């Protein structure tokens, strides 16, 4: 029978009854209607389903909704704040980092987490870090360029923030 889960997604709390086997990806898409999180495979390889759970990038097809009970989740729909694109989103637009757009939400979620962990990631490090995200359209070139633009932009924001504090 069903099990109750309570999850905060993009700042809003949701309490729902789910079948225990429900994948978090299905829960977000079907139960909450947050279809920005895509599903591209069934072997945890493609990363199209990547979200942030308690600040960590996870593949939502590999987590059960019940495991996410009590966590705080951000999906692609929650990345822009007050209509302002997240620097990684903006960089994808600026650098033509997407074609069909299917891998894009997962890429943006992975890269934003990666840059938080590795603020100085080199091009090569970015390429290695993207091991878990597959794109068939772009050849990754402009995704990597977008990641580098976002990296530099986040540095810039960080410095501005520091200056304002002093």
């Amino acid at each position, binding site marked *: 029978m069903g099990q109750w889960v309570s999850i905060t997604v993009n700042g809003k709390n949701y309490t729902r009854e789910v*079948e225990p*086997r*429900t994948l978090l990806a*299905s829960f977000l*898409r*079907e139960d909450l*209607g*947050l*279809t*920005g*999180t*895509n*599903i*591209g*495979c*069934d*072997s945890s*390889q*493609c990363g*199209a389903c990547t979200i942030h759970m308690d600040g960590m990038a996870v593949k939502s097809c590999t987590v059960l909704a019940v495991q996410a009970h009590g966590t705080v989740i951000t*999906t*692609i*729909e929650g*990345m*822009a704040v007050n209509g302002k*694109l997240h620097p990684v*989103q903006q960089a*994808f*637009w*600026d650098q*033509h980092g*997407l*074609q*069909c*757009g*299917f*891998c*894009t*939400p997962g890429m*943006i979620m992975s890269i934003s987490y990666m840059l938080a962990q590795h603020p100085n990631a080199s*091009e*090569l490090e*970015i*390429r*290695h870090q*993207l*091991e878990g*995200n*597959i*794109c*068939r*359209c*772009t*050849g*990754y*070139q*402009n*995704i*990597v360029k977008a990641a580098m633009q976002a990296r530099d932009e986040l540095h810039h924001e960080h410095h501005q923030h520091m200056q304002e504090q002093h």
Partner: protein
Amino acid sequence: MAKLVGQPIKRVEDPRFIQGRGGYVTNITLPGMASVAIKRSPVAHARIVSIDASKAEALNGVIAVFTGKDLIDGGTGKLPCGWNVPNIKVPDRWAIQPVGDKVRHVGDAVAAVVAESPYIAQDALDLIEVQYEELPAVIGAKSAASNKTLVHDSVADNITYTWPLGDHAAVEQALAESDTVVTLDLTNQRLIPNAMETRAAVAQWNRYTEEMTLWTTSQNPHPIRLLLSAFTLGIPENKLRVISPDVGGGFGSKIFHYPEEIIVPWIARKIDRPCKWVATRSEASVTDSQGRDHVSTAKLGLKNDGTITGLFVETHADMGAYISTFAPLIPTAFYVCLLSGLYKIPSIYCNVVATMTNTVPVDAYRGAGRPEAAYLVERLMDLACRKLKMDPIAFRRHNFIKPSEFPYQTPVAMMYDSGNYDGLFDKAIASSGYHELIAKRDQARKEGKIAGVGIAGCIEASGPAPSKVAGALGSAVGFWESAVIRMHPTGKATLFTGAHSHGQGHETAFAQIISDELGIPMADVEVVHGDTGKVPFGMGTYGSRSLSVGGSAIVKAAEKVRTKMIKIAAHQLEAAVEDIVFDQSTGKAYVKGSPAKSKGTFDMTFAAYTAHNLPDGLEPGLEENSFYDPANFTFPNSCHIAYVEIDSGTGRVDLQQYCAVDDVGNVVNPMIVEGQITGGIAQGIGQALYEYGAYDSDGQPQSATFMDYAMPRADCFPMIHTDRTVTPSPHNPLGVKGAGEMGTIAATVTAANAVMDALAPMNISHLDMPLTPEKIWSAINKK
């Protein structure tokens, strides 16, 4: 307003995608919607003895289970072939194979479940009991022809057609009279397209109007509607609406008519509820049409001075278990007709033997026949250089078709329109620092490393196709494209295009064109595509045709809009039509010599709709269309250069530098073109180094998940350097050529040539793709 064509305008479609608002089929939810799942064969070849669905039907939440017989009795038809080459044998193919018939590949459908949720539908699949009488599997493009087992009783020797082209006797004589002949046996391995969005279908039956709406992940919704109406589903075209909204990549695999496009709407009508089916990735790997799969033997005749005298090719092309919609086009007109490459080859003969096997059907995958041709030709060129000890560039230049020789009639039917191959190579040599790369390679070799430089010059025929030519070659449809421009009373425009965007950025590029043609801001142009309920008709997007064919239709329709606006302006300004100047940069019409008194787009469109003051005989309204049939293919060409080093301990290829120079004619949006080229290159390199849709001898797919199929990742590539030469196509109004496939066509053989150059000092002359560490290590170590 500055001209927008030629500018790298950021894409207008991106804000929705980067915020998670892509409108993919799989995101559609309708009230009362049920879930469809398909029971598929786990074996490659077997007779279906019986199906027992009683346990599945008894499962709570299961609405019904349907078999092949249900669908056939319910009025569905066989999937037709859309490209009938002479004497082809097209075996029967049903949406679901009925009991008594056979399953012919792993993944062939045997039953469909419809249930209250996708999870229940999946559970029910496991409860359906199918009894199979297993048969030996027919595997291998070439050996299929001598296999005693038949995939279809109606296809003798498993040969569905043969397609010879060229003067066989002349080629034999040329080879006999040559100073030397280079021979090459090669396999162009099977690939799985793997668009990141798997296929999906949603269907809704309207019981009141008896209309069906089908949302499907297609590159061409109108042809799908046509096939559904005329052959497979039997709902008339005027009662059937097919919508392909945002589609997550296609690469050819979403051109074709698939069984689920029949099954899902058929069930939706049957149970009178909306239905949805979404393929899992594992399902996609055994049902999406696959690519390539040729086994070829080639002989190239040469004079000692490097002059090519003739080319003989025999190719066995694996069609898989059924003839997919356009499958016969790929190894024929799109392959054989490109075997002349960039070169003057006095005589060419090629015979294609197309065979049936117990594998997933093969059809177009990005490049579609042309990468196979480029691979064969450019591998041969490198082997010829080796044999004659000639420089690969000097040898190629010696045999190039020269600019003064265009239009050039090849011995394999194609008439090339334009090109400057020396100029192309000059630019690629400069752009890539070719001579420095050679020096780097030589230095690396001195240091004991295994290093190579690969070069290839490739041609493509894109923008299919003049409808008459297509008809003569076997096509069941024409290949024009349509555009309708609807000017609204307020001066805004809606474009209805028959082309379909599944990543190509049409909403941006097409709006750029209209903005330039009519002098209105891009923001005032809405681009509508992918909906048979809105777009009059269209052939869709594949073969790098959207801009050269669809874009040309837009230009022609815009001309008609201008013409009518000029008539209105002339009337209102009390001048003769000939005296009106239409300034495309502002959208203003004025009398020659007095630009101060003008009519703007709004004035003219508004007048067209109020109709208070129109010239006598001019109808109100402002909506114009064009159906543009291209005069010829376009012929993009390219020179790509790559530098690799190979780890002698592991055999792993390190692709360190890659430079691409492409002539795709004029360019509307260079940012989008560059994206198309680099994306295409990645797929080409994927084939050369990583990907293989393998089957074992029982017909079991060996790479049917992303765990097994080597999808290239970000760290497989260096930053790719792209550059262009521009030889405008002489026969379309934009002067554009296709840009979608050139990267793939050239990259496969460029990367392969680089690896083979690296292995040349070890006297290894050819290895088949993918050039995996294991294969290279074994060759180096003679294992």
